[in-house]
């Protein structure tokens, strides 16, 4: 146990150092600093840019990271591979910090992909199980392939603006927005699990739950939002990119919420909820309101980390993440119950949690997107309507999960669950407090606030009414349970195509391309056999050939002279 605290101390030191760096920048006051100047040809310089937004995201990342490390001492402290687990978390945090503060796009890319690698390693922490292996491989492949969009996008930015420094790029007039925007969009859609590359996130759930809270809720998946928010000024001029972003986010938020509504597994439901909430942030960005988007990023980071960590406590107690194994935990696990209640309230958008305020800002931004901002009016209205429907669904599934996990009758034949140890409940309480504390100073929009509260109440009420009447909360919608088979291309078609083309390549390599070497070998054999006839060792034949040669030479000499 003592050795596990070593890593907590390490993370705490990192967190303190980052906090000392970030806190002075919270009030704006952006600072760009070049630590190591790059050379002309490579043009990679170690430069950082810290402003109010990056300071907030930094604090969120190291804060949640520290809480997760503390939580993990109890959750995984006795795991034989705890050391590598804890060290990879530290490496992950370094990657996230690099992404957030980087002013040089290559440094950003390094952090971006280091995060992806850590995510891969941590999802595959339980690599004995096939489900963790395939989940890890899928997450890594999908995000890394999407990251290639970022790589080419960076090259495009470099060639368009003549620099790879974000601050210098933003100082120029936007150029070539559509091409750059589309490339970046590929990367962002992959990293933040948006439609159509959304299927890796739910499959990443076999990873340890604290990791899910850190990487797949609060930080890495939100890095896509952060990147778009940071580069919004050069993307905004392209109506195509913004429309595409809006459409993607509308589809994703609705799908995510629908899938979350029908899950029978608490953790997977929360994963779909994350997908849906990330889409909320992108919707705000697509109407050009980066503040609304990033505010929701921060608030979501806090309450979703809370929900996942709470989910971990429940799993710790009942030994499964299936909703059917839960129920009746309200009295058994009071701290988990109350903190998760706060988390669910924030997810559903209940005043006065921070979730209410930031969702409100997003809706407000969307509503204004009709008249101003980069989107065509019709699209903005459509996205606004989808967002309202999603709010309704979100309130509904939050209520459903809350009821099934804590208030439903206890699953039969299970040992009595007990409250999680303090190292696990402590972080929950901190995050629950943060869920209220972050509300301070958030903007409030009366009209939208009333509307969204009405929608949330309707969603909660609909589920509660059903529950009161004693009806099942499981929707009979097999298509939704199968998640519309959207995963099929990634789980079947592409791997099958890859395998068969790989086999074809190996065959062609052996029988096709190699033919010329065999061909030349057989030509040589035939030639040697023909030439071998000449060298038969028969003196009479040699004499004949010599004689014929003499005659020919003599004849030639006679004719030509």
């Amino acid at each position, binding site marked *: 146990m003592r050795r596990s605290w070593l890593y907590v101390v390490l993370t705490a030191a990192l967190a303190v150092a980052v906090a000392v760096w970030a806190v002075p920048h919270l009030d704006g006051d952006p600072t760009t600093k070049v630590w190591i100047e790059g*050379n002309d040809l490579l043009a990679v310089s170690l430069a950082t840019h810290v402003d109010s937004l990056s300071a907030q995201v930094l604090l969120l990342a190291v804060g949640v990271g520290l809480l997760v490390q503390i939580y993990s001492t109890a959750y995984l402290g006795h795991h034989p591979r705890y050391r590598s687990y804890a060290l990879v978390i530290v490496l992950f945090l370094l990657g996230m910090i690099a992404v957030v503060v980087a002013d040089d796009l290559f440094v950003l890319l390094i952090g971006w992909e280091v995060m992806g690698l850590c995510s891969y390693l941590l999802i595959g922490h339980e690599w004995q199980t096939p489900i963790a292996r395939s989940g890890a491989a899928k997450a890594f492949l999908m995000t890394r392939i999407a990251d290639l969009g970022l790589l080419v996008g960076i*090259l495009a930015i470099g060639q368009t603006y003549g620099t790879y420094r974000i601050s210098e790029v933003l100082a120029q007039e936007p150029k070539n927005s559509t091409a750059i925007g589309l490339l970046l969009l590929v990367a962002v859609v992959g990293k933040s699990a948006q439609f159509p590359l959304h299927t890796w996130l739910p499959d990443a759930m076999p990873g340890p739950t604290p990791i899910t809270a850190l990487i797949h809720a609060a930080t890495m998946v939100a890095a896509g939002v952060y990147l778009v928010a940071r580069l919004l000024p050069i993307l905004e001029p392209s109506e195509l990119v913004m429309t595409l972003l809006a459409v993607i986010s509308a589809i994703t938020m609705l799908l995510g919420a629908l899938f979350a509504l029908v899950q029978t597994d608490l953790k997977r439901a929360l994963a779909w909820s994350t997908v849906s909430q990330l889409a909320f942030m992108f919707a705000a960005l697509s109407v050009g309101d980066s503040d609304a988007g990033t505010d929701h990023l921060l608030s979501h980071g806090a309450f979703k980390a809370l929900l996942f960590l709470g989910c971990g406590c429940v799993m710790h107690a009942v030994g499964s993440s299936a909703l059917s194994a839960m129920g009746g935990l309200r009295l058994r696990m009071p701290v988990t119950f109350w903190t998760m209640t706060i988390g669910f309230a924030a997810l559903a958008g209940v005043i006065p949690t921070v979730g209410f305020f930031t969702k409100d800002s997003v809706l407000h931004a969307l509503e204004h997107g009709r008249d101003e901002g980069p989107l065509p009016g019709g699209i903005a209205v459509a996205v606004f309507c989808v967002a309202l429907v999603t709010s309704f669904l979100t309130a509904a599934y939050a209520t459903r999960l809350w009821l099934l996990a804590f208030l439903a009758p206890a699953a039969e034949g299970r040992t009595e669950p007990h409250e999680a140890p303090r190292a696990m409940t402590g972080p929950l309480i901190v995050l629950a407090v943060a869920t209220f504390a972050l509300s301070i100073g958030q903007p409030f929009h009366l009209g939208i606030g009333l509307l969204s509260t009405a929608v949330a109440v309707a969603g909660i009420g609909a589920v509660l009414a059903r529950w009161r009447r004693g009806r099942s909360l499981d929707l009979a919608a097999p298509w939704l349970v199968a998640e519309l088979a959207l995963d099929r291309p990634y789980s079947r078609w592409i791997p099958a195509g*890859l395998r068969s083309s790989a086999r074809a390549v*190996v065959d062609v390599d052996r029988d096709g391309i190699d033919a010329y070497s*065999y061909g030349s070998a057989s030509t040589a054999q035939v030639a040697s056999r023909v030439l071998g006839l000449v060298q038969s060792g028969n003196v009479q034949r040699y004499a004949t050939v010599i004689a014929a040669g003499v005659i020919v030479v003599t004849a030639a000499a006679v004719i030509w002279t």
Partner: protein
Amino acid sequence: MIAAALTIPFVVGLALLFLRTLVSGRTAAWLGAVAMAASLVLFALVWEGKDAISGEVDVEWIDLLGARLHLGATAISWPFLLMTAFIGVLCCVWLIADDTAPALVGLVLIISASSLGVFASLDFLLFFVFFELALIPMWFVIAWWGSSSVEPSAEGDRGGGLKNVPGPDPRLAARSAATRFLLFTVTGSALLLVGIVLVARDNDSLQLTEIRGGPLAAAVLIVLGFAVKTPLVPLHTWLPDAHSKAPTVGSVLLAAVFLKLGTYGLIIASSVLPEGFADVAPYVAGAGVVGIVWSALACYAQDDLKRLIAYSSIGHMGFVALAISTMSPIGIAAAVFGSVAHGVITGLLFFLSGSLKDRFGTASMRAIGRGLYARTPWLAVAFVFAAVASLGLPGLAGFWGELLSLRAAYEVGEVLDKPFAWTAVGFAVLGVALTTAYFVRAIRLLAQGEPVAQDADRDLTVRETVVAVALVASIVVLGLAPGLIVGLYDFSAVTYSGTYTPVAP
């Protein structure tokens, strides 16, 4: 100093060959390591700056032909020299074991020294002599110390009856692979020699510092000669056999050093024959990117780990070829960086697969079994690290070579045209994605999974650890400080023909 750096490993190598009955394998390996380390230090010390030819030696040799013993390290060759000597040291360290044959150490030294000679030559004929000198010892290394897996792999290309390989005898399989390697490269060399003669006749000089251009035919022949060595698709079929049948140090030298003879040669060709090379450049680029995708697909179907790594080398060399074909300063930086990075990363991969083959008698992933994370933790971690470096994770050495060559192609340069270059970028990016896929597959098959313990499970030994740590450290250093190499080409305006004349600072 360069002469000493070349002579020491040659002399020690020859001595070990002739006195192989007098020394034990362990002593021989120690001697070899010391000789290569001395060579490495000398090459490091010889550096006089990127604008000059360092440690130039220029003495008369064959007056009749105008060939001279002209040696020196340039900004382009110096990274290759250091990498080769470094890999040579590690190969010798690897051989510090009781069952090492002293003659093998001698051959390793001669191969390394010949390769160093290639990189250090400033005379085209001398270059060619060293180029050939490295071949024969490699034949012996593969044929005598090579082996094949106990059971021939299912995907192995034991095909037509023309190949003189009866399946069961592993020694014969190795000999056939060695002969195949020799025939392919000697054929390439023949073309190369004709090309060199044409260039020499045109310029009336064999000195790389003086050659300026040559006929198109010469460029075609020279590029073809180097393309076999690099190798570019479709001239690559010798490589998987040779790499997978060679002993560990043989595979490492083949991948880390021999392929670099090809890429270095292509760089030379692009620099001394700019016009001719510009005409062939699109074909080089095309073969390069097709190779990236082709080899990545082939990797995906491999079961033999050494074959997989061999195929992956073709892909990495494709990036280098693409970079060279742009004929821009950034392309040269990319080519040199990519070559050096591939040397250390693939060197590590081959060393580790050699460890596995030593333990399990085969490199078949199915036979080695799953769950190495649990069975041999450090070996598995080193393997995963090498795989991740090889698939080009930013922050490690493999990334910058790929990135710079993508950038070189994206910025098009003056030789290729834009649609072609951008298509090439597209293919290369697809190749990166496929590379990730096959390495993830390999990690999944080897490192992860329910561990089934075998008797042969042993973690890294001391010598293996030394080699692995040295390579991991260099991969990380190159990954975090790419400027170390790229800075050598940091001229504001590099003229191509000026690469061999000091560029005014």
